[in-house]
């Protein structure tokens, strides 16, 4: 018995480790959802008459208002409204940026995108400066241009010691009035917009970036790759009868 006891102990630990891993993987709600469904429920329309009751989708969350006017792209009456909470220095946000552009090209007027600032300070040392740069450009009507520029060059500036001259260079390239930009970047108006977007994120339970809501329901992180996000948007369009 003593000879086989260590093997029994090892097998028990292996069993506990594997079952814990299985349980934890299953207990993360986002991980269980198929790509078509925002968290946490499946579409009510998937239930057939007479079938057991399906869990209803949660009511869309509203939260406190963010900065107004919000940075939006796409028509206000679009059937699918996507709201992203992003941090310009966050690598997954940088990876999500081209995916979102692709979705905008594919779905055109059916998709409205809103970007909300959610700089993760102090994890990302330049996140606040990047958010301020985008907002300062936004005061001159160039938010999306600056937003694209900062994300497209994320790997160029994120490891620099001082990013402000780099962002000023981007502003200049975009035709922004640089003198005004320099004043605005440290202004109360810019700080206020970032704070209001952050407040909205916190009220919606945003803990990290990118966090994406579609028509008020959070999209699980693993559903953000293009092929899965496309299905989510298509399902929303189907639900809206478009």
């Amino acid at each position, binding site marked *: 018995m003593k000879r086989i006891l260590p093997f029994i102990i090892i097998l028990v630990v292996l069993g506990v480790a594997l079952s814990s891993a299985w349980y934890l993987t299953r207990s*993360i709600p986002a991980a269980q959802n198929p790509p078509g469904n925002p968290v946490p429920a499946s579409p009510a329309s998937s239930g057939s008459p007479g079938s057991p009751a399906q869990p209803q989708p949660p009511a869309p969350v509203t939260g406190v208002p963010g900065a107004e006017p919000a940075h939006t792209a796409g028509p206000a009456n679009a059937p699918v409204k996507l709201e992203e909470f992003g941090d310009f220095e966050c690598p*997954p*946000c940088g990876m999500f940026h081209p995916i979102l552009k692709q979705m905008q090209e594919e779905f055109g007027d059916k998709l409205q995108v809103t970007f909300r600032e959610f700089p*993760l300070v102090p994890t990302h040392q330049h996140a606040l400066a990047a958010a301020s740069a985008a907002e300062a450009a936004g005061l001159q009507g160039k938010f999306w241009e600056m937003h694209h520029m900062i994300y497209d060059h994320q790997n160029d500036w994120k490891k620099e010691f001082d990013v402000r001259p780099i962002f000023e260079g981007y502003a200049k390239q975009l035709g922004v009035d640089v003198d005004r930009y320099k004043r605005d970047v440290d202004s109360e108006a810019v700080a206020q917009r970032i704070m209001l977007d952050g407040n909205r994120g916190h009220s919606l339970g945003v803990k990290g*970036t990118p966090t994406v809501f579609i028509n008020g329901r959070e999209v*699980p992180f693993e559903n953000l790759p293009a092929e899965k996000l496309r299905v989510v948007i298509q399902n929303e369009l189907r639900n809206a009868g478009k």
Partner: protein
Amino acid sequence: MKKFYIGAALLSLLGLADALYLTIEHVTGQTVRCTILSGCSEVLSSPYAVVAGIPLAAVGAAAYFTVFSLAILALFRYRIAGKILPPLVIAMFFVSVWLFYLQAFVIRQFCQYCLISAAITTCLLVLVLSLRWFSTDYTD
């Protein structure tokens, strides 16, 4: 020497729990997202977090499980297990040093779970080296 092996087994269990948690977070995409409190997103989304398609955290979990198994076998006087344990722990320590270097100087972000794992591996190394110094027969 039993106390050393029991200590090594307990430490490796802690390491196993830590590595398993990181693996789950990695696989489900939870930690890959950037968060306020953690630099794990940068570390786990870096190219160094995956080896031949396998999350490095999963490789770590397998290594800790192997250390646990060897420590238990050595505790029950399987001499070969006691001989394999030190080189494995030394290898794990060097891998931890390399990963610490990557976090500090390449990725420039620290993931607390990776740091916990490095600390556990360092403790295991100290334990294994003590075992060598205090005993000529470390299966006894």
